[in-house]
């Protein structure tokens, strides 16, 4: 352990000389060899972008506490280092434990005395002085759970029983969280679906499942719109869907929020209005500009150029993770990487797409950028996971 610590501390000082070493020996070749820089650098740059953005938010949004944001990053970095050092293969046979853990996390906010509401949103848990959203760590738990459940088929799911069991493993925590927090539920669904599909589920079954999901979703929406039938979607959720289709229906609440967020993005123009000049996002027209609508805040200040940089960094990070997955031989490790890719891709799509009016409004943070310690820690841990896969890749063979 001491040697590894030394490796971190001497980062970059004597790396280049041994760069030419053979691939299988790369871990020994230099201090940087334990780090997958293609994923680490864009991730850290995104954190820097987040720091700048939240700094601007802290000017006029009292809820955005800059120090607390930095504290979240610090905790997250420590956690990431710990994860990086840990060889996760130990978790590959712990499907049952992970499943129970996932279910517990999902049910935690419903336990009286523990769960409480923030801004009318359920899903928070208070343990002594610590307040967090268990839905955030549950994303990581689900990545491990689904990876360990799917890896045992070794890339080939051939019976419907196996496919159904995988789906069932995903469905239970999914339904538990969806009734509480639709946004996180969607993230978990995408993580699970990406892992199941990549792990080799037959195409026809996947297509049938998608058709089934679409049907059920349509049924849920329709019953929620008709009086007398059970309203599974809450009223605000239904409203968000309606304003997504037509923002003018409700220009004072959800439709207003969406319209204002889009004005913020569009008025940013090519170069943006400059740091701290977000007249829309920083003067209260865009709600939750430090969390759910953080992209509006960023895009208004830094314009198309800044947005392009932001999206490029995400692309860089995600593509390098997929490339790492391709090179990783262990199915379990590979699926873990795939789970992270699914999580990031969907969260970026949803958070950015929502501000651009091409996705319905949900409360999903933008990874590495949004204000909120739970999310920041979990995202940095996911970086640690990717780095750990890189670091322990030889053993995976």
């Amino acid at each position, binding site marked *: 352990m001491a040697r590894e610590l030394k490796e971190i501390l001497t980062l970059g000082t004597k790396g280049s000389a041994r760069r030419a070493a053979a691939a299988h020996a790369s871990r020994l070749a230099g201090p940087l060899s334990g780090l997958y820089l293609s994923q680490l650098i864009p991730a850290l740059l995104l954190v820097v972008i987040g720091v700048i953005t939240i700094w601007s938010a802290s000017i006029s949004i009292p809820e955005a506490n800059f120090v607390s944001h930095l504290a979240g990053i610090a905790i997250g970095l420590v956690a990431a280092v710990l994860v990086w050092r840990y060889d996760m293969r130990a978790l590959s046979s712990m499907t049952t434990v992970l499943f129970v853990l996932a279910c517990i996390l999902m049910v935690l906010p419903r336990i009286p005395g523990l769960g409480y509401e923030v801004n009318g949103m359920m899903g928070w848990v208070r343990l002594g002085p610590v307040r967090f959203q268990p839905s955030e760590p549950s994303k990581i738990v689900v990545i491990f759970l689904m990876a360990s459940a799917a890896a045992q088929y070794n890339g080939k799911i051939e019976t419907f029983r196996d496919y159904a069991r995988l789906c069932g493993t995903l469905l239970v925590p999914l339904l538990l969280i969806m009734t509480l927090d639709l946004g996180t539920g969607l993230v978990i669904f995408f993580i699970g679906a990406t892992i199941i599909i990549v792990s080799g589920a037959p195409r026809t079954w996947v297509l049938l499942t998608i058709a089934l999901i679409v049907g059920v979703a349509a049924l849920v929406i329709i019953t929620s719109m008709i009086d007398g039938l059970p*309203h599974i979607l809450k009223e605000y959720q239904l409203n968000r869907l309606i304003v997504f289709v037509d923002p003018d229906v409700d220009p004072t609440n959800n439709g207003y929020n969406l319209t204002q967020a889009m004005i913020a993005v569009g008025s940013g123009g090519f170069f943006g209005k400059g740091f701290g000049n977000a*007249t829309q996002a920083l003067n*209260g027209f865009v709600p939750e500009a430090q969390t759910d609508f953080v992209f509006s805040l960023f895009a208004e200040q830094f314009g198309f150029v800044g947005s392009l940089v932001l999206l490029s960094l995400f692309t860089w990070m995600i593509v390098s993770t997929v490339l790492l997955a391709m090179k990783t031989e262990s199915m379990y490790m590979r699926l873990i990487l795939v789970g992270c890719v699914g999580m990031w891709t969907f969260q970026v799509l949803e958070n950015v797409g929502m501000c651009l009016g091409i996705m319905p409004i949900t409360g999903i943070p933008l990874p590495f950028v949004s204000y909120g310690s739970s999310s920041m820690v979990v995202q940095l841990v996911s970086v640690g996971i990717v780095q750990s896969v890189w670091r322990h890749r030889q053993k995976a063979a």
Partner: protein
Amino acid sequence: MDFSIVIVVVCLVLAVALVVIYLVFGRSEANFTMDIGGAAPKAAGGSDSSSEKTTSSRLVGLLVGVGAVFSVLVARLWSMQLVSSEEYAEQAERNRRSTIYTQAPRGRILDRKGREIVTNRASLTVVADGAVVDDLIEVQLLGNLIGMPAQAVRRRLQDTTEGYQSPRMVSVDVSRRVVAFIGEHPDVFPGVSVQERTQRSYPHGSLAAHVVGYVGTVSQEQLEASGSGEDGTPEYRSGDVVGQSGVELSYESVLAGVRGEQTVFVDAHGDVLGYSTNIDPVPGSDVVLTLDIDIQAAAEESLARIVEQRRSAGADCPGGSVVAIDCTNGEVIAMASYPTFSPNVFTGGIAQSDWDVLSAEDSHYPLLNRAISGQYAAGSVIKPLTSFAALNYGIATPDSSWYCSGWWSWSGKSQGDTIMKCWQESGHGAIGLSSGITYSCDVVFYEIGKGFYNSENPEGMQETFRAYGLGSKTGIDLNGEEAGVIPDAAWKREHYKALGYSDEDSTWRGGDNCNISIGQGDVQVTCLQMAQSYCSIANRGPAWKPHVLKGVRAKVGESFVSEYRPEQVFSVEESDSFREVIERGMWGVTYEESESQASHWTNMSISVSSKTGTGEQIGPGRNICWFGCFAPSENPKYVVFSNVDGGDWGATTAMLVVRDTLGAIYGEPDNSDAVYAAGD
């Protein structure tokens, strides 16, 4: 809510079941996988070792999916931040800017000598931040202090017509006690302050109320018409106080000024973050009228006294009017209508009870300016015009003579024909045209009417009346003027047919000619029209457009930035020999018709030419009494005209009003108390 608990319970049961499956069959699961691996060949196609291939190709698919997601996002960003950026930027600007409006003080309205008729006074106004509305206790306390229901205070606080960031007006004209209390207890009334604002003020009360008019909150129609630039009025905002009648309306664009606009930057809650451009309000310009408040006051007082005398005598006397015009340029020196009103009741919004009184029938419509809007039968005051018509069309000559026996019929026979009486039933005997005017002999004019009917120019009278401006508006710079009616054959046919009369009853007859020759029948004129026609007689031709505006004052000093340029609207050519006949007749009315009448005029240093009139109004069944004159007779300067609806004789009502008005002009009050017994 219940439903989601059901889902949770079902999920938990499922979870337990799955855990049991994992624990019980967990091991065999792994073996099972092994078995499948061993039995691989049973799969068709032989692509058995493709597990690595499958996941790799799926990873490529994943890359494609990720690429698609980011391409969509970038494409959308492109369209929003580059293509439509300006629209969004415009909306963002609209969001962050807000405007606070300040009402500009209206210009004053002055008389011809620069004395104030309408001005502005400082009014102590309680204003409050919009946020005060959330403090129920403060609203209640404020209501108690001012003496307003809390609900009314709340409604005022929610009124954002002056801009969202403007302080809301709670109450105008509050007492010193309220001001002092608010000043001493700032802790009780946070956000509440007292401002000095301006309100319309009328130092002479209701003086010239019909001319100056009144102001009120802008109406929906005015709002919609404003800003189109058609009538030159400024663009209004809801809640603006604008002219609603009289000079306040006619010269609104001059009086209104330009409201101040302070642009501020605001956040989503409407809180001011910073200040941008500021345009100070431009006060309205002062308007100088042609009225003289001394003469106006004398005219109003006299008119009111005469009408009230008639009313206290038990007569049905709804009202009257008087107009004094400088016939050399059309300036209106005085214009009064009775009953009148106080424009003051309109400041700060008129109370419903006041409005009900002003618009009730039994208060005789005080808002109506009878001088320009009251249409009545002309009666004998039209006879000078009839005389001109007769002379021009050869129906009579200066030397013509008729015989008045006190009655008249078309055929001259007393049997089998409609008998029409002269007002003096004893008859005037042999009488010429000039005396016919002086003594107002109806028979003379019946003959003229008959003469026209039988002549080649059966409508010559109407043409003359129209040439003198009757039947059309004078074009005075006040709203609500009526055109009156000069009936002819075509008019009668159309009008009577529309009322449902038969063809026969709608045909023009000789009797109609006789009626209009003495200003009766369907003739309808306004006091101002008659005054204008007498201006033409007095000027020997030209008539100027009557007007009340003398000029608009410069912001500084007493000079005019623009002055009303008198406009000649018509000029009637008459031969001098004809004019002498009519002028002689009208001079005679003043000094020869009756001794009592003359006694009111011989006490003046100037000579006056005039005509009395008493028209019968068929509908209401009461007389409309007229008197019009020009003075001095030799070199006329003023035309004064008056009518009293419901008087007994012209000489007992309208003439006295005219005498008092002319007396005020020349500083020679009427000291005759002779009462005219019976005469016209």
